């Protein structure tokens, strides 16, 4: 029985490998280095709904049915997000990071894996209140094009607004949160002008490269879906995208500790997982233990 199970398991693993390979080869989306159990759960979930009996059936559908692929893609994009999610993070940014950002004439912030954009707008609101909105440019990217479109709209269900307001207040907000949205027909539309400094684009962390020198990279709760290898690659990508002295913000449960890059960063806030790229990176350059 055990033997059967493991045999089945092995076959399933092969099927998943093939499916992911197929997706990569056909559409260029690379999920091969995502955490395997997570991938399995998402595939199981889709199988249950779509009525496919085997993963191989799904492979066929994914290859020949563009629409099905879009659904499949949607499954992998876990968009759990809020405006001012983890208010203490924004409080820390406001208190410790913003004063440093103010010393640059202009700043660039990259929100990698922005999902439906809540956190991007949160940052935009924060920057506006800190008087940085004219100096700042935010790049908001996600691999999922449809999600980026949704982020661009900036329309969120009205029932969440109460919670968001509370978040905003806890994050050190200085105004009335209602100043930033207009609610009607069951939705809240964020102030259009918040979008002015934001550039929405699709960008795949797994396959795409560096696109500029950032003063801050925010990538929260994305790395948890990647296996260690991919995490390292992505952190290296952030590392290369950051200016010396730039900040890297990860999710609360994420850490640089095992990434092999931790010596290139120094912690600014351990609890909020904010790191600063060292000015002197290694070897021939001189390191200072600041």
């Amino acid at each position, binding site marked *: 029985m055990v033997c059967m199970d493991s045999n089945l398991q092995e076959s399933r693993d092969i099927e998943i490998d093939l499916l992911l390979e197929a997706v990569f080869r056909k559409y260029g989306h690379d999920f091969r280095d995502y955490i395997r159990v*997570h991938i399995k759960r998402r595939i199981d979930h889709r199988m249950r709904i779509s009525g496919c009996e085997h993963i191989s059936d799904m492979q066929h559908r994914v290859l020949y049915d563009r629409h099905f692929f879009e659904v499949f893609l949607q499954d992998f994009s876990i968009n*759990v997000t809020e405006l001012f999610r983890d208010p203490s993070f924004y409080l820390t940014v406001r208190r410790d990071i913003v004063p440093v950002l103010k010393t640059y004439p202009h700043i660039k912030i990259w929100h990698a894996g922005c999902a439906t954009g809540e956190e991007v707008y949160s940052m935009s609101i924060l920057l506006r209140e800190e008087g940085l909105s004219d100096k700042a440019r935010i790049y908001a990217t996600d691999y999922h094009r449809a999600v980026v479109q949704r982020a661009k709209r900036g329309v969120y269900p009205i029932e969440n607004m109460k919670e968001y307001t509370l978040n905003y207040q806890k994050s050190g907000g200085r105004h009335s949160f209602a100043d930033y949205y207009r609610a009607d027909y069951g939705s809240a539309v964020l102030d259009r002008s918040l979008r002015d400094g934001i*550039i929405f684009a699709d960008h795949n962390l797994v396959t795409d490269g560096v*696109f500029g*020198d950032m003063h801050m990279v925010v990538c929260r709760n994305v790395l*948890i879906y990647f296996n260690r290898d991919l995490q390292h690659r992505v952190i290296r990508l952030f590392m290369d995208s950051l200016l010396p002295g730039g900040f890297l913000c990860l999710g609360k449960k994420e850490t640089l500790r095992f990434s092999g890059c931790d010596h290139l960063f120094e912690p600014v806030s351990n609890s909020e997982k904010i790191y600063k790229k060292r000015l002197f990176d290694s070897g021939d350059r001189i390191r200072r233990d600041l």
Partner: protein
Amino acid sequence: MPAKHVNFHLIKSKTYCSFPSHADANRIWFTKKVSSMLKDHNIKDKLLWPVGFLMLVVTCFLPGVFLIEKSRNLNHWLLIIGILSMMTLILVIYSLSRHIVKPLRNLVEVSTSLADGNFERRFDIDARDEFGIAADHINRAFDIVIDKMFWYEGMLDAIPFPILVTDLNMRWTFINRAAEGMLGVQRSAVYGEYCTGPHSDVWDTEYSIHRLKGGETSYNLHHALTDRHYQVDTAWLHDSKGSKTGHIQIIQDTSEATRLRQKAEHRNWLRSGEAELGHLMRGEAAIPELSKSIITFLCKYVNGFAGAFYVARNEDRMLELTASYAHTRKKGLPNRFAFGEGLVGQAALEKETILITDVPPDYIRIDSGLGTGTPRNIAVVPFLFEDQVKGVIEVAGFHDFSPREMEFLETAVRHIGVAVNTAHSRSQTKKLLDQTRSQAEKLRIQQEEVRQTNEELEAQTRALRASESNLQAQQEELRVTNEELEERTKALEKQRDDIRQKNRALKEAHEEIEHKARDLEIASRYKSEFMANISHELRTPLNSILILSQLLSQNKDHNLSDKQMEFAQTIHSSGSDLLSLINEILDLSKVEAGKLEIVLEEMSLAELTEDIRRTFEPMAQQRNLSFGIDVHKEVPDYIQSDGKRVWQVMKNLLSNAFKFTEAGEVRVDIQRPRPGTVLKNPALEPDRAVALAVSDTGIGIPPDKQELIFNAFQQADGTTSRKYGGTGLGLSISKEFARFLGGEIQVDSIPGKGSTFTFFLPEDPARSLENQKPEQSMARPISAPANTPPPAPNLNPPKQEVPAFVKDDRRSLRQGDKTLLIIEDDPNFCRILLELGRDRGFKVLIAEDGETGLHFADFFTPSAIILDIELPGIDGWSVMARLKENPKTRPIPVHFVSVSDRPLDALRMGAVGFLIKPVSMERMEEAFTRIEQVIARPVKRLLVVEDEEDQKRSIIELIGNGDVEIQAAANGFAAFARLQQETFDCVILDLGLGDMSGFELLSRIRKDECISRIPIIIYTGRDLSREEETELRKYADSIIIKGARSPERLLEETTLFLHRVETRMDPDKEGMSLKSLAHTDVLKDKTIMIVDDDMRNVFAIGSVLEERKARLLEARDGLECLRTLKAHPETDLVIMDIMMPEMDGYEAMGRIREQRPFAKLPIIALTAKAMKGDKQKCIEAGANDYLAKPVDVEKLLSLLRVWLY
């Protein structure tokens, strides 16, 4: 009145009219009717006509037959036939008048009387012929007819509803009994009268006939006066020929039926309305659709022309418009009403219907394509559910709403109330369901995330556990190692105790020896000092003696005798001897006092031999001794040595040789040391040494005296001095000189036979001396090479006792050593640092407290200091402060190592680095590397250009430390001048300067070839526009806006620029720029536009292109690119970034391609994206080629060459 004939057909044909009557009253009417039917027809004609016709046929037919058969006698036959015809005719006429006309006349008479109402009369023809039979039959028929007539009349009278018959002239011809009752007249009175009369207001026959003429045979009539309903059936009456003879009206009073029907209809209308409405509302439509269909239906059903549907919102008691019908929305009309607001609100408040009639003309308009109109009535009806107002319906119509319609509305709203309520609850339920569903989905996703997080945590835990088990293993290992160490320690402790005991004994002996040595040293020093003093004291009077005795011996005044002159000469020569003796004593004391100066130079051995020959040849001749000098070929021409001292030694040795030789020879051999020669001085290498041997054939020296002769004031035989003279100092001085020169003197002698003194000299003493023991070098100032800087310090440490815990290198210090001072009270850590320091070639000094540290730092001036903060006595901070106060110790780099956590303070104080304990080996290595780099580097120079004194001072305070020298300039000109005259490693520049703008200064600096590469940090208090930043980026390496956190950044960045090792231009790049020089011609003078919002990128690519003499245009986004392109149509190529604000690269490329002149302009897209399809997307958008970020310059160049070729 004409005769009337009864026509049977008529009766028969009229039966369909259904006159079922037998009443007498109808008899007259019937008679009249029949007679009138017959009036127009002459019965005679009808009877005569067939007889005539028969005759005609016979007359015509017969001749015809004959005509055919006998056509030849036509004329005869015609005549006969004519006659026959005439006869027949006469016969017929007679018969007719006899048998037919008479009875016929009777027939007519009877008929006429019948027609006049005399129903009793019958034909009285008793002939037995046909007429008689016919008359009988007719009489019988009359009886039947008349019976029938009365039967019909009775029947008509029995019909309970009125039947009215008129002729074409609208005169009454018949009314039945019910009609009599209705009209209130006797029929006999009205027959033949015109149908209108006093009864016309009861019944308008004319109207009915009028409608009949219009083709209406059946209609309903409501008699307003009596409020009765009638059904009127009318018909034309025809005679047998079909001609109209009159009209008949049958009137049924349908009042009751109509009432019932109307009631039923009303009920049906309401019911079907309700049913339809119910059907409509049966679905699960949401409120908007539901209200739309309801209002549409209602309007249609009650003939409304416009309608509106409002639903009450529970939460704020507002009525909101959810649907409307044919309603043209006017501006300013509200979509919602509060309860009590407007009619809609009022109706809701009262829960009562409001009906408005005579609506003002501008109140509402109903538009169609054909026109507009204002409805007259508006009904506002609220609908309730459980006595709660759920909404309001408003319907407008052009007509007055009938009670029925109003009733329907009232009924309908009851159902609507329920339906809306249901819909409402349904939508509520649906919303809740959706919410639940979305929450469930969200929950699921969150669960997913949580699960993910958990797994991540688990993975981390596993990793931790792995490292924990690793740690355990290490601990185990450590434990074992510890145990082993403990064992060893025990053994060592025992050894230590032994050693300590021995040490104590040794120390005592040592102390004794030291005591004696000190006594000796003091005595020796006293002696040396005494000698030095006495020689000086002696020389002063001797000077006078020598000069005066010489003057005397010259006898210039010629007043001295020869004897006196000889005395004077003797005085002079004795004085000279005395002087040389004094000089020798002096030399010796100098040697012993360590004050001898030796000058190394290129010394020619040929010159030496020449000097020897010149000096001693005359002496040899004088003494009759043979004298020879032999220089061997293998000896170099020149050696490094002090010629004066070598000459002194040689002179000494030769003087001795001549002195002790009576006969024979004296010779000098200059050669390499013979093989087998044992050299005591280890600095001497036989193949790099020269042996100067002086041999004589003199008295020789016995072996036991051979050592003695080198001691001062000693000769082989104390008595010899008398005989041979001499101070006895010569050899001891020579020996000392030889030693100073890195060589030695050996003696080889046989008494009576002669002696050989060999003077060994190194070819290059500096080289040899390096190999010598340190103790020896201490006393040898000659050891340093020619370019040695300051004189060697006195390396005797101020404190004699070695710290108990770690033995350091203070005793083996040599001048020029790299020294490291460790101020640290933890002996174990000290030991580690000591080892690390030694590994890296440092001589390490250790001070276990701050005071000692400061003392050592001042005394030894070490190359670097590692400083702990927690120290017994004064702490590290104070030590640091004191070190920086003292100009001598200020430049020494200090690296902190501490458990304390205040690196920034340390750096502010000028530390070169800060390590936080506990530290890893790697960190320690890094710290040492850092220290080495700081030592290896000359002091950095920083120029601060700032016109405000306070600012300037604070910057200097912030950055200034031992290894940075800060200069300040208050304005642009001063700064520029200083930059041109002096060398700086970095510039901090404030943009606001008195005399010229920061921009101007920057551009001047960058234009100046010599200083253009200096790193510049802009430190400014003003906000910069993007344009300004772009401009500044071209010149400045870093821009810092003043603010709360700016000092920190300034310090960091300045440190970065001051200390970075690599050159500004990396070697690859330089190599490349040389390599690709050959390709410049393709790029040269080409106009290339870079479109990118990342200025660093623009700058990087720009500088590569500018090096190749391309003309550059820049744009920061798509829009700017288009504008620039318009202004510069000569552009040869565009490098386009994709991800840009305002207008991205895809769109920009599309726009460029739309313009005809640029359809072929080469565009190279730059993108960070590497996804499948991204390249394709670029190409589709109009790019010619594609380059991934970060840009590989080599690849970019080859692309440019391809597309510009």
